[in-house]
């Protein structure tokens, strides 16, 4: 479904992503884990078309894509951002936020599509004419997911979709994503610094450090055996809580 070969991204003299290659099969949930500055978000922004300055090759559904994307691309690939407080227009109602992609792509039946999208993310019609400031963080993230899904894409890119949320709300959003993936047969790429979130939702993951993928494995392999790269082991240990040895190394 998605195939990335020898991707390089530089900002001035800084090489944010260097020689990254991976493939994601249709229906996969692929996780990218790493710390801030490891290039995971940059990689996602390249895939989504938000960063046109890269070299290498990207294929989506068998078609090579360049730096500039057409409308058809965005019907197929949508993105959900980290901060639901920043990613929704503060002066647009939920209705207007959801109506915009429909208008851009000239789809029919806007009314029914908006109602269905809200239903799908568990919000219901009473949220339709609210402004973002009248919603909680979890509700806003649901609106952002509804906006991404309203074009019925087959690929959803998720950039830290739960890291601004409390754990109880995070659980709701993770359940929602898992349910939508099955219902709509989506292919997901999830970027997160939280190994536990990635391991919970994904079936395959790649650990990134300093712009490169240091290890790629299935979640089953992660569960049954120690990861081989020392950095992945460190992340795994840190995800379990404070550990004296982890701090002194």
């Amino acid at each position, binding site marked *: 479904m998605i195939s990335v070969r020898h991707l390089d991204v530089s900002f001035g003299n800084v090489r944010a992503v260097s020689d990254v290659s991976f493939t994601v099969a249709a229906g996969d949930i692929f996780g990218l884990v790493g*710390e*801030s500055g490891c290039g995971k978000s940059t990689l996602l922004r390249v895939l989504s078309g938000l960063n046109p300055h890269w070299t290498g090759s990207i294929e989506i559904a068998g078609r090579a894509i360049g730096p500039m994307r057409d409308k058809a691309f965005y019907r197929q690939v949508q993105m959900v951002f980290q901060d639901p407080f920043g990613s929704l227009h503060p002066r647009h109602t939920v209705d207007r936020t959801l109506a915009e992609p429909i208008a851009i792509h000239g789809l029919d039946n806007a009314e029914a599509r908006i109602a269905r999208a809200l239903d799908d993310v568990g919000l219901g019609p009473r949220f339709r004419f609210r402004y973002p400031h009248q919603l909680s963080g979890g509700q806003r993230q649901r609106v952002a997911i509804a906006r991404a899904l309203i074009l019925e894409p087959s690929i959803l890119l998720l950039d830290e979709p739960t890291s601004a949320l*409390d*754990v*109880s709300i*995070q*659980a*709701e959003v*993770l*359940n929602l994503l*898992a*349910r939508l993936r099955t219902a709509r047969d989506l292919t997901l790429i999830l970027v997160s*610094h939280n*190994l*536990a*979130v990635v*391991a*919970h*939702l*994904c*079936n395959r993951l790649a650990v990134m450090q300093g712009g490169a993928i240091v290890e790629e494995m299935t*979640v089953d392999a*992660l*569960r049954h055996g120690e990861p081989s790269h020392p950095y992945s082991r*460190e*992340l795994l240990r*840190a*995800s*379990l*809580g*404070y*550990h*004296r040895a*982890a*701090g*002194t190394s």
Partner: protein
Amino acid sequence: MAQPPLLSVRNLCVRFDTPRGIVEAVRGIDFDVGRERLGIVGESGSGKSVTGRATLRLLPASATVTADRLALGDLDLLGADAAALRSVRGRRVSMIMQDPKFSLNPVMTVGRQIAEAYRMHHRVGRSEARRRALDMLADVRIRDPEHVYDLYPHEVSGGMGQRVMIAMMLIPEPDLLIADEPTSALDVTVSMQVLAILDDLVTRRGMGLLFISHDLNLVASFCDRVLVMYGGQIMETLPASALHQATHPYTRGLLAALPTIDTAGRDLPVLTRDPAWLATRR
């Protein structure tokens, strides 16, 4: 506890007067902090940060703080005037904030900020303060203190900035340190280092630590005792090692909602909030 507590709080209430009415952020909580690591966990809006700030009387004028007792040793913090509070802040109790980017003075080198913190509470000359600040930087495991001393906050990384903050907060040698989400702006591997430094210093100097966090696993593994807060009240207090055997439905719900490697492929149990949790007020 054999020793008298460093900080003793009884029936602490904090109300905020907002344009939309009165918000009760903290509703009658009791706790003591001794020479131990006490964790406060809870979700956003549970009142944990307000509790930490109320202890140092660092809340805005719109807040009303009442308590039957809010005492640091034998000093009544509620009755204390501004001058008395100034001598407490930093010297006896200090506070580490979440994000060093917003808590350090951007136009002053980090070394001078640390030296200033020391001179505020000790009558020493510049060179002595500088020497102390350099020692302190070495204590928080900064490799080249002489070099880092002359850097401005924007020139240091997040992890180093947080170590600078810890150095600044510990140099007046307080009895009690309040750390409000000290590592949540940091990467996991860096935050382990920062926690190890805190751990060492607290143990070595016999300080009390009030550790405020939303991360249950972190608190369970780092602290001695844990308070679980919800809706401005304490749901339960328990030894950190027993957090995973908690009995309160709120704590259980939070623990169950945490994704792990072993929950893959399953739905996470969603927390259902019971109004009765808040009804049982004294």
